């Protein structure tokens, strides 16, 4: 690792201020960033830990029933504290990494990184979540801009994420056998006004909504609604863990399983 200064502010304002420094970078749980630093693939002058800001911690239920999660809330906390109000999201959080990683990794860090095989982007996109930063609110549909790319500006911090709670939802994750990220992950959320299907792990462009599946399910929410629908393998990721065709196939299978789980 290159050396860096370390700051751990206790307010969002102080964090924003610290991140204004040249080459300063935010540190969530560090579960992706620290391995990246070890490879010397990043050289921040200052790492600004977001782990000491009480306002960015925890899960709470808003008056409208939505679930608001502080940006620095760990996956383990979401897995336990969101379980009663939004069990599918809690289940997703409980499938990220491993127990020790879940005790450090945060929702804000995951969303800001937007790894194409991460779980949270699928949950946020399918839930129609709102990503709340120190300056604005960004709809999930506008937030994810492709592999490792988001709508966040330099120095902008995800302070919390607001998840509307669907009538039913399910996250179906097929493991990449080595990293245990998603080879393909499908998050299906069924709201009163429609179904949203988000797919992670599969596409060269990162998380995406499978709109054809959504249309079919909006017509009729049944197990065989996907019959005849196929994902075009051309835009899928093909690597040593699975071909493009295999990933495209898995998107269908995982979506079917998510439908079944929501029946």
């Amino acid at each position, binding site marked *: *690792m290159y050396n860096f200064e370390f700051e751990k502010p206790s307010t969002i304002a102080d964090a924003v201020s610290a991140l204004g420094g040249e080459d300063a970078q935010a540190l969530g749980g560090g579960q992706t960033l620290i391995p990246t630093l070890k490879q010397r693939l990043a050289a921040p002058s200052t790492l600004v830990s977001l782990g000491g800001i009480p306002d960015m911690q925890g899960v709470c239920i808003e008056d409208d029933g939505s679930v608001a999660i502080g940006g620095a809330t760990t996956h383990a906390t979401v897995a336990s504290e969101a379980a009663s109000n939004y069990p599918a999201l809690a289940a997703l959080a409980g499938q990220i990494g491993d127990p020790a990683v879940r005790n450090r990794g945060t929702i804000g860090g995951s969303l800001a990184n937007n790894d194409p095989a991460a779980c949270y982007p699928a949950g946020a996109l399918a839930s129609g979540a709102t990503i709340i930063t120190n300056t604005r609110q960004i709809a999930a549909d506008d937030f994810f801009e492709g592999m490792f790319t988001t709508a966040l500006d330099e120095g902008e911090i995800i302070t919390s994420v607001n998840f509307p709670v669907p009538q039913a939802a399910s996250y179906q994750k097929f493991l990449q*056998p080595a990293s245990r990220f998603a080879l393909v992950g499908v998050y299906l959320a069924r709201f009163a006004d429609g179904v949203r299907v988000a797919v992670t792990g599969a596409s060269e462009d990162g998380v995406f909504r499978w709109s054809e599946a959504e249309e079919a399910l909006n017509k009729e929410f049944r197990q065989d609604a996907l019959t005849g629908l196929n994902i075009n393998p051309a835009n899928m990721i093909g690597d040593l863990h699975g071909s493009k065709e295999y990933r495209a196939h898995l998107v269908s299978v995982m979506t079917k399983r998510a439908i079944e789980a929501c029946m």
Partner: protein
Amino acid sequence: MPKDSGIGASSKRREDVRFLTGAGNYTDDINVHGQAYVHFLRSDIAHGRIKSIDTSAAEGMPGVVKVFTGKDFEGVGGMPCGWEVTDKHGAPMQEPPHPILAQGKVRHVGDPIAAVVADSLEQARDAAEVIDLDIEELPAVMNMKAAAQDGSTLVHDDLKNNICYDWQLGETDDAKVDEVFANAAHVTTLDLVNNRLVANPMEPRVAVGEYKRGTDEYTLFTTSQNPHVIRLLMCAFVLGLPEHKVCVVAPDVGGGFGTKIFHYAEEAFCTFAAKACNRPVKWTSSRSEAFMSDAHGRDHVSKIELALDADNNFIGLRTNTYANLGAYLSTFSSSVPTWLHGTLMAGNYKTPVIQVNVKAMFTNTVPVDAYRGAGRPEATYQLERVVDKAARELGVDPIALRRQNFVTQFPYDTPVALTYDTGDYNGTMDKLEAAADLAGFAARRAQSEANGKLRGLGVNCYIEACGIAPSNIVGMLGARAGLYDAATVRVNATGSISVMVGAHSHGQGHETAFPQVVADMIGIDESMVEIVHGDTSKIPFGMGTYGSRSLAVCGSAMVKATEKVIEKAKRIAAHLLEASEADIELKDGQFSVAGTDKSVAWGDVTLTAYVPHNYPLEVEPGLEETAFYDPANFTFPAGAYACEVEVDPETGQVTIEAFTAADDFGNIVNPMIVDGQVHGGIGQGIGQALLENCAYDENGQLLSASFMDYAMPRADDVPFYGVDHSSQTPCTHNPLGVKGCGEAGAIGSPPAVVNAVLDALNSGGKAVDHIDMPVSPSRVWAAMNS
């Protein structure tokens, strides 16, 4: 009735206490006062010509002690290969130099180009970043078959081609082999790949070199399975140092699996640099570095053909294998595809005509060498896959086909140079059928099918040659070392015993199992015996631990030395008891005179040996004996394994539902440890079969370069295993009758898994006759849909 101590008892491991409390002493836990750290600048391309290396900027960086390049090692020997293979025309293998730091060319991603020694590791890394390299990239030689063609780019410009050797074993008359196949009632042919693996012991490699100017002495602390071998190779072939001035210490070592047998450039570098820098020099491999610098395993591409007569007797076997050696010859690499592989192609079967052909190839990849099983898994996998395929083609029961062709008379001379001393393959198969409840498989399959899953059963046999090895035989075959081992039994005055052994324990539990033997022989408590290993300044010259040899070879030396101790102690006892030596008996730690009630305790005799006041004058004082043991033959553990899998027909996901091993290891000293060895081997075998794949792209870039892409088996990838080792035909030629158990699981399990997957697919109406390992969901799905 299980014993509670001595040979046959599941004594709890004494070494566990330190490991469980964080008190182990691994090489990276060792820090020598004043040490500097080395960082190796490694090639990020697979093949290139070094035009210039400018280290001047690096030398001026903060904390830098010295920067080394290949030039600093001109005139210094390269890393040696310990086994000269003779090709089928009688010519020696092509043996290119393997410099400590690259000279002239880089030949694989990870090939070390320069080394920066600095006050801190981060400073060394900083400085390495400003080394100015001019390297002309050359085409990467990756495909073994293409590399064998005339006109291929050469990995080594000074060699005539990329073929290290073209080797053959068994029937040399091609016409005779052709005739057997021409006359066969049925021929089964299979093309397959034995996937390249990375051993990945959980402890990455570490080396700390130290030099004492006052005495001109070196110490190398290193993560090694065989410290004396390292010292010999490094002193005699690489650095030209006198062995008596060099001490090699391998303290607690966190797993080896073969990959810590070899003498590595980093070890020689740290030893060399300690003197050149006049400071201790430490290197700790990161896992990422391990992926591109630890010797890899397997990587064979084979075609195997099995000829059967009209009664389904095996009448001929022919294999053609391309074996990847990587860019350089690692220490024992040349022996793996040949004498550790071709010799095992008979398997458990009495096939009369066998021809094994192996072309060993240089490619622009990390060197390949022994990994748990080393050649024997490659042989077993080919043979047990082709037998399974033959059974399917012929519509016969795969177990019955195997039984029909088993060797049943011992000793048995195979057509591929081995003599099996003993075994009972039918008896072991009987044990397997019972332990795995094969009779209940149909019901389990029905249950799986009711749940929408395909269930398959895979069975296979294996035999391995262990207890490596008779020095006279391996010498004839090209080994440049003897493969005996040694033990010194030092009895202390108060009767406790230190046993200095050449074997090295890095998980095998020698510190517990070896004392069980000595204590049993004398009749004293195990706690009175302590094992000393891993330090060339303390132990006799031994060859270390690999090839499932520790107990069979070093243990035999220990038995011989203990016998000498007992013999001498009896002479002392006879003197004390005023009896004839011939009448002295030793039982439960008491020397007694046969037929009388006169006796003297072990401790009184040992005290007398060191306080020889009342003593036989013709006997030397003291009680310490050393024995070297060179085995008369290999040992031949054998077994039969069964795997049951479920396949998800929608995703191709394979889950291991049951795995049962029936092994014949001969006699067993500590059943608990033996079971553990089998468990671990099966875990690695399942890893090879389902998960692990060291993959390169066509440019020689390593795709699986970390645990993010190299799939290691995890706890939820495997089930509880059933292990049965009640089939026991003791080895006929070593004193304990033991055969070795360390590699069996890794040798025997991959074909069982793959056979099971294919059985599942075929039961579901998918006529798939082969899938290469790892049998990943993606590959299963593709096979089902092709």
